[in-house]
């Protein structure tokens, strides 16, 4: 297992390098000259060619592409993503706290999503075809069909405005988490519990379940075996859900004025703040790679057949 972890981590290195190159190329393909963006942000009244050239020199944009890429990558490795073109602040100072805020929201949501999905999935599988299973699936279908901003507005109106139980926005105390986490949980758990359910159902028909019963094992023990095998599929999905939520909290963050990555990235994109956008894309891509590796490692720990596959 130790060897597997090392090999899996080594495999992530070229992937991370490719991501950094791709991010850099994509941003450089933008038709907008960064020097012009900086000058506009500084409120320079007339932008002359001479001025642009001087700014390019200051930003190091006159150097060849590969040199710029290498400099940028080496800086990134030290968590130095440059300065924002708009505010002049260091990108890390801008993105760091926002990333932590979004990460907090994401992790709390992920725990809630996993708990709800596993619970509902197991319950529905054990009751497959009965009233409980059918009603949970119908309700989940309706809830996931409602767009999250609609659901958010509805819940804010009821819990915060009418009942005055929860804050409408901000990130003040644990109570601020309840509504955003609830909305993210509903939109993801409503989909993921189906994976747990169908995976449980397909495992229930396996021979090892029959032999377990024929050996006189209690249902409790057999259910644990089924769960152990069913969760392998679910774990990959859960681990990949974390970076997906990280990158898609934009809507929820905007509704609840959550000071996170979502709101920051929208602002950066609208004002063409290239260093911030670059850092944002890079951080999300890296978290995808990291969580993918974690999911592979958990799966290998649970499924011995996978360990020799790498």
């Amino acid at each position, binding site marked *: 297992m130790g060897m597997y972890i090392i090999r899996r981590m080594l495999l992530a290195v070229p992937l991370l390098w490719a991501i950094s190159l791709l991010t850099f190329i994509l941003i450089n393909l933008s038709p907008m000259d960064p020097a012009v963006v900086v000058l506009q942000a500084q409120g320079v009244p007339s932008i002359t060619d001479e001025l642009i050239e001087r700014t390019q020199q200051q930003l190091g944009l006159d150097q060849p592409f590969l040199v710029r890429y290498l400099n940028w990558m080496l800086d990134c490795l030290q968590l130095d993503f440059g300065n924002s073109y708009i505010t002049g602040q260091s990108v890390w100072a801008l993105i760091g706290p926002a990333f932590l805020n979004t990460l907090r929201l994401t992790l709390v949501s992920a725990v809630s999503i996993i708990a709800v999905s596993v619970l509902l999935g197991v319950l529905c599988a054990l009751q497959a075809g009965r009233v409980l299973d059918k009603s949970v699936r119908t309700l989940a279908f309706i809830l996931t069909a409602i767009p999250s901003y609609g659901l958010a507005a509805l819940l804010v109106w009821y819990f915060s405005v009418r009942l005055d139980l929860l804050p409408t926005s901000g990130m003040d105390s644990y109570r601020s988490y309840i509504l955003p986490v609830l909305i993210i949980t509903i939109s993801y758990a409503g989909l993921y519990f189906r994976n747990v359910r169908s995976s449980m159902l397909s495992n229930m028909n396996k021979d090892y379940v*029959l032999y*377990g019963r*024929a050996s006189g094992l209690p249902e409790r023990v057999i259910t644990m075996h089924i769960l152990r*095998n069913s969760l392998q599929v679910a774990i990959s999905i859960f681990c990949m859900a974390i970076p997906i939520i990280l990158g898609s909290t934009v809507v929820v963050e905007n509704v609840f004025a959550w000071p996170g990555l979502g709101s920051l990235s929208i602002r950066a994109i609208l004002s063409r703040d290239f260093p911030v956008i670059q850092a944002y894309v890079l951080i999300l891509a890296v978290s995808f790679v990291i969580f993918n590796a974690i999911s592979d490692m958990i799966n290998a720990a649970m499924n011995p057949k996978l360990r020799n596959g790498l």
Partner: protein
Amino acid sequence: MNILEVNHLNIHDIHIGEPIVKDISFDLQQGQCLAIVGESGSGKSVTCRSIMKLNPSSLQQSGSIVFQGIDLNTLTDQQMRKRRGKQIGMIMQNGMSAFDPSCVIGTHLRETLGQHYGWNRSKIDERMHIAMHSVMLNHPDRLMNRYPHELSGGMLQRIMIALTLVLEPDILIADEPTTALDMLSQQEVMAQFIRLRHTLGCSMIFISHDLGAVRHIADHILIMKDGKVIERGETEQLFTAPRQEYTRDLLSARFALDNHFRQLMERKEG
């Protein structure tokens, strides 16, 4: 004395709305081996699983199954569970899929024996080691820590037999235990079954479509077709003087195959 009596067993599939097993009755005497032979889909496995009450809920069964004087239909789930494994044992067709693929073999063995005997780990391991040696499995402690995919079908089949040796059931149901194995493993496993019968003196229901295997081990044979018993009798009598056309076909198919194989071998040698 009859250890098991199956009377007017009917099994109905409520999904497709058709009967699968139609009015089957048979009994099994203490120490006797009964073979149930028939083609795929004739209802052999479903019949045997109904004895252990292990069919899915979509299969409804009626009729009585009397084991040691007790009608199994009157037992609660809990009472039935205690009899499974300990009093009515089962050997599966495919050893490769019979164990949880994400746990080592020892897990199933320890859970099962812990459940029935309440032994601690070292006692279980000690008893399993003896049983595994007796079915010609070397290095039991190493095998206990192996995953199912790391072992061969024949080894897993013998591990199931070893577990049965420790559990000492009154009846053992073997559901086509040699079908998924190659010729050499088949012979080894059959030899273990014959030894197991002698060691435990238990009654046995042996499901198979391999008439050659059945002839070595069974005292009585039931021939099933389309959910019905079409012929029954003592093994030798059935082999020498089959009454039904279908049984004759089964036998001649078997001998034709044998002859064909022998001719091929002779030609190859010649």
